[in-house]
């Protein structure tokens, strides 16, 4: 019978190879899917994966979408390394967007880029505050941060919905659920004319570099790594669990809040009923596809961004349903988790059946005497 056996040491090759295997398996499955939908798979792949990256504008869009994914993904990865599972980055992102928008709308007529600075700080603070709730409940009452942070996502959505339908609604906006457009001093500067990519991309790159430094060089990063790999060793060494939980949630909450400001002060330019197509959730996939490594997260968020944009062009050009994006994301995570199993296990080949042979001649083994 074939069976799985634990590897003596986790396989490094498999660890790096598993995202590639997952991506290939995803493509294979989608071939079948495209066939079933009556599409030419090669053409569909072209539309989905190649076409979006063929133009400068397309690459700009790719980077634009990768920005919030990277910011959220880097923060989540740091937490996941320490077994702190912040699932609510989308809520923290939403709260960051709300706080940033409130600052922008309050200083409607102010001049000067200090408004933008204040918006960024407010967004980071709001994301941290929203993440502080699961941190407090976990450290005080041992509640699951997974459930609390997830439920708070929906609370944040409802707060946003209330604000854009009520107090922050644009009085001249024909009753659309959205705020006034921000003035120019509350909009992040663009990196290049003609592209929508803005300086938030630089923030994301700085976050990646800082996270890399944090994880590989600082003692706080080491503590979190140990807590994730071997909780008993962390307790033995005297690392505080609570400190890790707070740090993980503050970092991921703050970065998600920053991503939220980046959206409202970037491509959106106002507060709308929805500020994120689920970036905070997609960032969970990004974190794992990126092997919880900052550089990996950057690459994974580019892939995820391609899935978003490719999904949109598939809707337009191939008339495929919008669910296709979620489907691709799901397939990717599904195959990744399956492939990850082989980091710690390997398949033992099938045995032949037990076949006792005819008696063999007795062999007396040579015995070496004591020296």
């Amino acid at each position, binding site marked *: *019978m074939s069976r799985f056996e634990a590897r*003596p*040491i*986790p396989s490094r090759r498999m660890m790096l190879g598993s995202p590639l295997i997952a991506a290939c398996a995803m493509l294979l499955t989608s071939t079948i899917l495209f066939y079933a939908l009556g599409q030419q798979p090669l053409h569909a792949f072209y539309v989905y994966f190649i076409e979006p990256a063929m133009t400068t504008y397309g690459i700009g869009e790719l980077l634009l979408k990768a920005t919030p994914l990277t910011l959220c993904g880097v923060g989540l990865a740091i937490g996941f390394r320490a077994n702190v599972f912040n699932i609510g980055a989308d809520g923290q992102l939403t709260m960051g967007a709300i706080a940033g928008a409130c600052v922008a709308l309050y200083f409607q007529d102010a001049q000067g880029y200090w408004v933008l600075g204040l918006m960024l700080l407010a967004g980071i603070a709001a994301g941290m505050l929203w993440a502080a709730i699961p941190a407090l409940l976990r450290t005080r009452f041992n509640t699951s941060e997974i459930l609390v942070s997830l439920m708070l996502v929906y609370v944040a959505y409802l707060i946003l919905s209330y604000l854009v339908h009520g107090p922050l609604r644009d009085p001249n906006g024909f009753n659309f659920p959205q705020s006034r457009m921000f003035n120019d001093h509350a909009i992040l500067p663009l990196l290049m004319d003609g592209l929508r990519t803005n300086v938030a991309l630089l923030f994301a790159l700085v976050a990646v570099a800082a996270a890399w430094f944090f994880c590989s*060089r*600082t*003692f*706080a990063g*080491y503590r979190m*790594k*140990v807590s994730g*790999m*071997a909780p*008993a*060793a962390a*307790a*033995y*060494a*005297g*690392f*505080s669990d609570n400190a890790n939980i707070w740090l993980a949630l503050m970092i991921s909450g703050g970065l998600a809040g920053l991503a939220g400001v980046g959206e409202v002060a970037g491509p959106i330019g106002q507060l709308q009923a929805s500020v994120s197509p689920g970036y905070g959730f997609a960032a969970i996939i990004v974190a794992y596809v990126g092997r919880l490594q900052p550089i990996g997260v950057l690459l994974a968020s580019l892939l995820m961004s391609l899935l978003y944009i490719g999904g949109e062009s598939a809707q337009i050009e191939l008339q495929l349903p919008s669910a296709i994006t979620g489907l691709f994301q799901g397939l990717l995570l599904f195959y990744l988790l399956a492939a990850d199993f082989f980091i710690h296990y390997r398949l033992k080949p099938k*045995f*032949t*059946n*037990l*076949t*006792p*042979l*005819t*008696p*063999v001649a*007795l*062999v*007396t*083994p*040579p*015995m*070496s*005497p*004591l*020296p």
Partner: protein
Amino acid sequence: MNPSITPAHDTRPQLQLLGISKRYPSVIANDNVTMSVMPGEIHAVLGENGAGKSTLMKIIYGIIKPDAGEIVWQGRQVEIHSPAAARKLGIGMVFQHFSLFETLTVAQNIALVMGQSPAQLAQRIRDVSEEYGLPVNPHRLVHSMSVGERQRVEIVRCLLQSPRLLIMDEPTSVLTPEAVLQLFDALRKLAAQGCSILYISHKLDEIQNLCDSATVLRAGRIAGTAIPKQESARSLAELMIGKELPSCRLLPRTPGDTRLALRHLTLETLDPFGTKLHDISLDVRSGEIVGIAGISGNGQQELLKALSGEIRLSDAAAVQLDHQNAGHLSPAQKRAAGLCFVPEERLGRGAVPELSLAENALLTAYIPAYGSGMLKHGLIQNNVMANFAREIIARFQVKCGDEQSIASSLSGGNLQKFIVGRETMLAPRVMIVAQPTWGVDVGAAILIRQALIDLRDQGVAVLVISEELDELFMMCDRIAVLASGQLSRAIPLAETSINQIGVWMSGDFNVSGEIDYV
């Protein structure tokens, strides 16, 4: 020689291994191993950690497939593909770590393997267990049983399948001296009926007492065979390690001031299977080694966690370090006060399996009070860390690639040398060591014990918690016994004997009024 070794009815070997080899990517576990076991023979397999004993046994029991070689069973060449196939042939194995469901009864556990209902089995379990002098009540829940009783269940489970060969992997590491004798009687009875026994152990005196013959493995190869009763423990050990056996020396020394004091330490446990600690008092002075004997599960885990700070006590005065109340301190605070600790579990607690030895050096050496210099402004100084790890590796003869090898790639004994070395190099005032040589081979065990004795000679207060009485008698100045969460007084080694401590280990000591503070 034991008459059972050559029963009249059968003179061909029960089991023959011919040229068995098993290679792993980094090591050769077995290299051309050839041996045979006669019916009714109790055959010892001796060797250091990593000598390939366990791999060989797993090959016989069908868990591992050999790369080359033949297994001949009762004169027929066989391939054993799985433990089920091994059991079908009549091969049983009792593992070092038990495979019982704690929430089920004995009969239910056994029924899982036998494919009969627990009710049908109950009477047979009673009969067989009594026949071999290993009484077991089939209706008891496993979690309520001591380790020794659980092992009986494992053995009875094998016996019910009427094995022709029983493999026992370090069976006595968890037993009291009295239970060991009971086990040996049962094994002798079994052998007298023609069942062969392969017996793996580190304990040479047991092998001399029990076994008819011995095969010694060294680095995966047969290093020789011997009749244990005709050898001395020393010559067997030297055959195992392939060189002359070093020994550790404990010279009398007058202890100094009390460094670690326990005062009426009482601890309730939240774990339903845990042990409550009751009114534990003890002094450990500078320049002495105090041993705590006792079978695991009698409060060792709880006591160690209370000492290390992993459990914080409400009564701050219950643990005192250098006369300062320390019961309420966290592990980091305790370490800052000069306490170093080697836990029983090496992988996952004493060291992080996935990290390199250098990174594992940082695990405890980060405490500023130790002054290792590994951290500057919260940043890790990689070269300081690597140098520290290299020094441990050199001083404690840790066998590994280099300081970048990951911890889980080391054998148990070498990792233990690394952990003991790390804690030793942090210049502790008080050193606490749990099961210092559990599963560690002879050579490494002596090195570790000598390192602890050296610490004592430098004036460190050393507390050793161990199940191995021989070890405690080899290295301790005073010895106490922990049984059912209560601690006996600590008596100087000269005033006691292994027998007395053995009696105490069953819980039979007078606690009240005899605690003498020093």
